[in-house]
């Protein structure tokens, strides 16, 4: 099988007396090398574009005077200052993110499953509707919430107001991956099997649907948490001086304080979100290409390229 599909396998082109084929193959492989080379250049340049400013801001947050450079010495002073001034925003952000996650799990997972299972026009419409808060600008959603609920001052002043905004905005990020996984898992057949053996709906939901939907749920949870912690468009409009989340505090700092303090606050943000991302990846969000199936395909490609 392998020798049939592999263009450079011995016996296909290497028969003696066919110099044109060899020449064409050389031209092909040099073109391929150029493409691969260009691909590497773009990838590494993109990587530098993304990583260099992060490294710079970490350095800036730790130096005594960024204008004079790292030669002015390293210090934890800025981090300390930011922590004493803004630690409540870190905890508020974590609480808001947790509350948002709980609500999106409770509402989004069942909805994702039900929408994947029923192929009616109504369920397509509902799917479309749920995505609207993401497709349309967060500013509009925030203004709309203020118009209707801005008058209920107890609600308006509490962090629940921000949670509500986050839930509406992040719900599709839970519904869609769950629906995608449910649609691809052929749950109907599995469930019919279980039902014929006498399993009730609740039993089927907990023993078939939830385990099968797990990759979608984990992916959705990752998206919801990161989006909630980083949400600014809505939060900036919805927050009050008492409900400042992390990105709101960041915006304050960038606007009014020196670059070292802004950088130190950014370091705090990195410290807070990185473990979360790593933990979620460990929990089983499948980084594409690391599965065993792909590894086989990868080595096949490698063989081809090394020919």
């Amino acid at each position, binding site marked *: 099988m392998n020798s049939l599909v592999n*263009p450079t396998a011995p016996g296909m082109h290497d028969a003696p007396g066919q110099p044109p084929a060899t020449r064409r193959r050389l031209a092909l492989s040099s073109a391929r090398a150029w493409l691969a080379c*260009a691909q590497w250049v773009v990838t590494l340049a993109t990587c530098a574009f993304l990583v260099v400013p992060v490294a710079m801001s970490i350095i800036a947050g730790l130096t005594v005077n960024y204008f004079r450079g790292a030669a002015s010495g390293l210090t934890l002073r800025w981090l300390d200052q930011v922590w004493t001034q803004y630690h409540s925003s870190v905890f508020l952000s974590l609480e808001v993110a947790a509350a948002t996650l709980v609500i999106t799990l409770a509402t989004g997972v069942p909805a994702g499953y039900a929408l994947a299972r029923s192929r009616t026009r109504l369920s*397509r419409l509902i799917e479309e509707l749920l995505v609207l808060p993401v497709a349309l600008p*967060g500013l509009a959603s925030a203004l709309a919430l203020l118009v209707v609920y801005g008058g209920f001052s107890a609600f308006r002043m509490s962090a629940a107001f921000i949670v509500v905004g986050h*839930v*509406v905005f992040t719900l599709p990020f839970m519904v869609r991956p769950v629906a995608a996984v449910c649609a691809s898992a052929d749950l109907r057949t599995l469930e019919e099997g279980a039902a014929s053996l006498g399993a009730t*709906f609740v039993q089927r939901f907990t023993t078939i649907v939830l385990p099968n939907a797990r990759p979608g749920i984990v992916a959705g949870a990752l998206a919801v948490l990161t989006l909630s912690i980083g949400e600014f468009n809505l939060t900036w409009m919805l927050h009050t001086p008492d409900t400042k989340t992390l990105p709101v505090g960041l915006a304050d700092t960038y606007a009014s304080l020196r670059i070292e303090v802004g950088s130190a606050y950014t370091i705090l943000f990195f410290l807070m979100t990185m473990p979360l*991302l790593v933990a979620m990846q460990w929990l089983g969000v499948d980084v594409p290409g690391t599965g065993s199936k792909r590894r086989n395909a990868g080595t096949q490609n490698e063989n081809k390229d090394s020919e």
Partner: protein
Amino acid sequence: MHDLTFPLRWRVALVAPALAVFLAFWLLPMVALVQVSADGHLIETYRALLTNGRYMKSLGATVALSAAVTAATLVISTICGLLLARRAFAGRRALVALLTFPLAFPGVVVGFMVIMLAGRQGLIGALSLRLTGERWVFAYSMAGLFAGYLYFSIPRVIVTVMASASQLDASLEEAARSLGASSWRVLCDVIVPALAPGLVAAGAVCFATAMGAFGTAFTLATDIDVLPMTIYTEFTLNANMVTAAGLSIVLGLVTWAVLTLARSMTGGAVAATA
């Protein structure tokens, strides 16, 4: 179509909570927002809004910026994503991690990253000062915003490309190669069409995000002329709720129209994966 294992009452019960949240905290507020924006006489208010040169220029700039960001992001992310998903090399996981960890960055942080790169004390300025004797500072303008949105979107689209690339049917590509197709032909005729549904979806999200984002612009400069900043200024500085509401509805409608257009142009492909 009759589905014995999934009776109607369960369908309704499972969708109801999500739908209730949506209706109470998005649809109802949106209807109220439309009402506020009409200010008693819908047509005149919107005519005034749509014939206002300043607002329309701001809207045009926002659409152009979002389209440019989407196009650039798709090209760059496809190149990177294909490399990451289809090659095995030492340090691959580390590279994936480096290219995707800015996923968690909010717009404000991205704005700060652009200031780090291209701001007054930025790296590009320092380098260009040494090389050309001139300090290049473009963070606080449209170019800075473009860089910021690129920074914001690339990791997201790379993730999508990698996910779709890992689903590619390797045998199609092998068949094309065994029939003598060059790498370029394989890329154009096999790989990109297979990735297209994912790319259209990711591009649509990228466009919509760029249209509505205002964290990055807020961090860079409050006078960058994009519509979200205009809305924000109308709302806070001028306390003009009617105009702010009207403009955010116009922004929403334009975003929605472009998304619908993109989807209908690639209709078959997107519907197949929906």
